[in-house]
């Protein structure tokens, strides 16, 4: 069964991931959409996403990222959480089906790294807020 693709929404109604995607070059936005759609159509644990969808490790364990390279080898990343559970639990969370939840994105020049502070502030803090909400706050 194909999964749904949802977007985390902040308490003020803003959607960090779409704000990020709207600021990306059109080709990068298109590639992110293509990977999301491919993974949703053939969800984990099947191989999917053409190698651009990867599980993260360490302090980012539990998150998945889509890794793309853009003009000038600028690096673009889109961070997601997976939500899968029994139907009653999914309903309790306000989800219609197992879902890929897009949390936020970040970009950086080639051969630079994100710090743990970057991940904490721009991804984990939002992901924790997402998971703390029952039902989930999702872009409509």
């Amino acid at each position: 069964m194909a999964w749904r693709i949802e977007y985390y929404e902040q308490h003020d109604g803003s959607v960090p991931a779409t704000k990020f995607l709207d600021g990306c070059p059109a080709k990068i936005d298109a590639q992110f959409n293509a990977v999301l759609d491919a993974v949703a159509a053939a969800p984990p644990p099947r191989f999917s996403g053409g190698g651009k969808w990867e599980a993260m490790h360490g302090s980012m364990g539990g998150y998945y990222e889509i890794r793309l390279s853009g003009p000038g080898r600028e690096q673009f990343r889109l961070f997601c959480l997976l939500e899968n559970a029994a139907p009653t639990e999914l309903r309790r969370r306000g989800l219609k089906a197992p879902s890929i939840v897009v949390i936020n994105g970040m970009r950086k020049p080639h051969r630079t790294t994100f710090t743990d502070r970057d991940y904490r502030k721009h991804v984990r803090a939002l992901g924790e807020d997402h998971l703390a909400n029952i039902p989930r706050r999702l872009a409509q």
Partner: protein
Amino acid sequence: MSRTGFHERRRTERMRDPEFRAEYERARSEIEQIDSVVRSLDQLRENTGTSKTDLARRIGRNPSSIRRLFTARSNPELRLVVQIANDLDADIIVVPRRKKRDRRLRSDERANATAA
């Protein structure tokens, strides 16, 4: 509330941009081909009753690298894909698309006719 999800509505809107549409279709095709190769190898592995651990041992790889490959937890390395294909007695082949091949042949024929 709309029956169509937020993601689908946004994608539909973005598809109005020809640059976005062309890149989306190109990327989907590329992803589909890569996914198809890796899934075919995994299917072949299962059909031959080969465990991921056995496969890893036979090609001299760490079992975790095989598990990661088949569950999309890492970017597939072509060398590893070819090693697995070899071990499972299969080939990775590239098949030219008919349309492009025919177009190139017609172009060559025209060039030859002009030269003659």
